[in-house]
């Protein structure tokens, strides 16, 4: 994680700093440099034409004055929390389920992984058609669940849950895959020991599988939480942030300000907020969970 320090005993025999040079170069060129540029742009007035004009902190003041910003921040937070809950609640048990050997499970897994093979834009176009209230799936399913006219993505309250559904549907297979792989890594001896101790299947799941999946749970959570800050193209295509601003989450707000309103300066300020949020979130998750200590759960094995 951290560059090697000279003289430290712990670093003896480790590769020198020069090994990290290509990565540092890439990171500097494609991460640090744009980050610096976006911070600079957030302090300028820039429509994309000509050169950015220095403005100072006006965009940052406007940020505090922008009701859509706070609304989109809240919607991003809600989408993050709910999609974490929704995806984990399904992906974890499903991953454990398909980790066990069996042909029917393998077939099920193959079908379930389909969304992972599709691009985000394709998924969004597919769902846009399914959500058509007159001719799509929405017209069939709607009456079953009390939405007689199939008005899902056009409803200011339901549109948000539609987005949650699509985004979760899109990323769940990936997390299932993580849990499946991790479950297969759990040493068999643990289950044998548990069986000898008289543990049933539920007890084995709770006392062996779950604790062993702890690191995977953290990895998956970090990916979901940080990844949710980049959910974007699916919403842009299905609802465009609407109806009104009902599904305008922070990344989408940034895009619309930058590439529809051509207010690059303000969009950059929003981008900086996103950047800070993403970094803070991922730090927070790894700190709280103790992931950074790289502790093992395999002691004694």
């Amino acid at each position, binding site marked *: 994680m951290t560059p090697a320090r000279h003289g430290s005993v712990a670093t003896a025999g480790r590769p020198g700093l020069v090994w990290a040079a290509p990565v540092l170069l890439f990171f500097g060129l494609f991460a640090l440099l744009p980050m610096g540029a976006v911070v600079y742009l957030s302090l300028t007035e820039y429509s994309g034409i000509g050169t950015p004009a220095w403005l100072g902190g006006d965009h940052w003041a406007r940020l505090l004055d922008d009701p859509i910003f706070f609304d989109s921040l809240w919607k991003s937070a809600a989408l993050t929390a709910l999609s974490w809950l929704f995806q984990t609640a399904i992906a974890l048990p499903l991953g454990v389920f398909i980790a066990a050997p069996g042909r029917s499970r393998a077939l099920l897994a193959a079908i379930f992984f389909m969304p992972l093979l599709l691009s985000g834009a394709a998924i969004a176009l597919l769902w*846009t058609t399914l959500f058509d*209230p*007159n001719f799509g799936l929405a017209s069939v399913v709607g009456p079953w669940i009390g939405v007689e006219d199939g008005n899902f993505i056009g409803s200011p309250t339901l549109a948000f849950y539609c987005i949650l559904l699509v985004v979760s549907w899109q990323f769940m297979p990936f997390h299932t895959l993580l849990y499946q792989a991790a479950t297969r890594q759990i040493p068999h001896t643990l289950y044998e020991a548990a069986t000898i101790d008289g543990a049933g299947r539920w007890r084995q799941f709770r006392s062996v599988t779950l604790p062993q999946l702890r690191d995977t749970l953290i990895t998956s959570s970090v990916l979901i939480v940080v990844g949710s800050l980049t959910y974007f193209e699916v919403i842009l295509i299905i609802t465009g942030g609407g109806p009104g601003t009902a599904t305008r989450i922070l990344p989408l707000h940034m895009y619309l*300000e930058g590439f529809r309103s051509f207010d690059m300066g303000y969009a950059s300020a929003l981008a900086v907020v996103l950047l800070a949020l993403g970094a803070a979130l991922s730090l927070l998750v790894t700190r709280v969970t103790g992931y950074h200590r790289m502790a093992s759960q395999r002691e004694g094995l």
Partner: protein
Amino acid sequence: MAIASRRRSTIGAAVLALLLTTAACGTSGPGETGSEGSSGADLHLWTLQNEGINEVQQAAIDRFNEEHDASLEMTTYVNDPYKSKLQTSIGSPNAPDIFYNWGGGNLEQYVDADQVAPLTEALDENPDVRDAFLPSVLDVGTVDGEVYGVPMQGVQPVSFFYNKDVFAEAGIEEFPATWTEFMDAVDKLKAIDVQPIALAGSQGWTELMYLEYFLDRLGGPEKFQAIVAGEPGAWQDEAVVESMRMVRELVDAGAFGTNYASVNYDNQGSQALLTSGRAAMELMGSWEVTGLNDNFPEFIEAGTLGWADFPAIEGGAGNPDSIVGNPSNFYSVSSQSDDVEAAVEFLMTQMTSDEYVQGMMEVGQVPAIAGLEDQVGEGTFGDFNTYAYEMVRDAPSFTQSWDQALPPDLSQTMLTNIQQVFNGQMTPEEFADAMEQAAQ
């Protein structure tokens, strides 16, 4: 083209967004300075992708290059990425010499940045070229009395399209000419359990068309001109509020059904309603005809499609012959071009040439050129093209789509707010106040 100009090409846009930071520092970046701009004779023309139209454009370029020993080159783009690309290129060393634009506010921002070469002088030297364009269309390429863009493709007025079978079933003999008759028709259509109007309300620009026509009929084109000019109080004008009230009346009367906010234009959601007879009509730009022909050819072949002007509103100050829509798209010359003279020469020699105009008509466009009465009537869409051509020719005013005429940030706010009025989250008065505030 028509559809492409409207279709939100979200895929490319999505990719672009990921590049926000890189795109934003494009002007300071290295760009392509090494390969372009150094050899004075190379000229670049940027336009939108459209198979039929691109062929006609390329033919004009080939003719020009041959006659003038020049090397003008065409590059094509998809709609939404193009807007971003153009915005970040104008004023940079990568700027094109001739570029496609939407006229109005879109063009004005480039003019304000001193990036566009004026064309008035060249047009005065070529009066036959100047007089060939329909004046109401050329107006949209004009900023503060100076022409900066010339029309380069067809006119796209907005009108009603209706299903003749459904109208007959409801016992409506002719498309209503006045608003009272129109509301009668809405009731008659509801009586036979048909949704009177198909509306792709998940996209704000389809809803905007109603506001555009209401304001034009109620207050005349001056009301929107005041809005474009940024006059204080223009959005709070009684005619704007009244227009929005008429929107609410239509919505409350159930004219759009209940689930219009979920319907999408790009996947033919509203067209399917119209052609299947579940809805009776749709207010749309002239691209609707070619669009329907692509997606529902049997509907066009059966001759079930009718079209009609937006009805007159009794007591309104506007002329019922006035229209709204996209007058055309325009070519402008970059003032930073290495050879402004040659670029202007291209526009003067090609845009009104017989070959170009004829070619445009062959691919279904209705050029903004005077004196084509006999020719536009030929071909598959002859009937409609004649209708559209005469409508534009005889219109006392042709108001440009508001989302093109207004600055991009204001038009985004407007589209969001219009959706909220249609969905009952905002009142007409709140709309006027919110827009007035955003415009200041």
